[in-house]
């Protein structure tokens, strides 16, 4: 049976380019995945990392990116993202904005955020 995945929209407090990632590079997501996974492994530990199996699915712009993870490990991954405070000696914070089962929903949501078109979700 196929493992169910979850996509997480994350906002970085610092520009992603400051972590040494070139956004124009076609392998930008893979490179960023390699960088961030080191820190996620440290926060999650081997076993929880296996449950989450995180990968950067897309970098939307200099602040927003989407992480794909297995459904079972998503809660732990969200906590791990909150605990990461430094990437490659750059102080940063990762805020989990939204989670969804499809990447398309998150892309639309992020586009709305950038254009201030999102309807107040608290209402």
């Amino acid at each position, binding site marked *: 049976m196929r493992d169910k995945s979850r996509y997480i929209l994350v*906002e970085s*407090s610092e520009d992603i380019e400051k972590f040494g990632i070139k956004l124009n590079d076609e392998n930008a997501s893979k490179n960023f995945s390699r960088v961030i996974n080191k820190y996620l492994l440290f926060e999650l530990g081997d076993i929880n990392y296996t449950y989450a199996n995180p990968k950067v699915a897309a970098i939307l712009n200099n602040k927003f990116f989407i992480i794909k993870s297995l459904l079972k490990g998503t*809660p732990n991954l*969200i*906590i791990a*993202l*909150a*605990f990461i*405070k430094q990437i490659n000696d750059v*102080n*940063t*914070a990762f*805020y*989990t*904005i*939204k*989670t969804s089962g499809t990447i398309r929903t998150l892309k639309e949501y992020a586009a709305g*955020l950038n254009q*201030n078109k*999102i309807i*107040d*979700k*608290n209402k």
Partner: protein
Amino acid sequence: MLYYDLVDSGCNIDPKMQFNLGFKKIFKNKNDIQIADVDSLKSDFNQYFIYGSNTSRLISGLRNGSAGLMINDYNLDKKLIQFTLGNKSPIIISINKLMHDTGFSRQRDLLFIRRLIKYIKARKIEFSIVTFADTDQYMCSYIQLLEISKLFFDNPNEAIKHITNLKKLIENER
């Protein structure tokens, strides 16, 4: 569900950031709510939420009209909690120390918070969980605050109640 958070005066919150993080309102120390350290030189804590390590000063502050207690070092001071119960003062639990610590210290913080919450909950004292971040770097989105709060409860569904009741808690004390 409306989520609320409380941060220290060092954070710069604009409405866009507040919206992105998913909170209805992020209360800020000195603007929306008054929070003071009892170990400071200040002497009048009337209508202040107070925190600190000196139990006798905390009890004295609560006796003299403080709005409530804020716990940010997670030591279970049974005498203080009992006094809070008698005084009907609410408690705010800050996870700022947990966010700053790493490794074994963080793991110990988690255990201490669990123990503290179990004790407070058994005595039916009103409490709320907040980040009380000192800088933007230590702020959390509501999803992160919820997932962290779920670690403190036996039943994860209880966590929602304690990150949505901050407004009620503050306004009751005014």
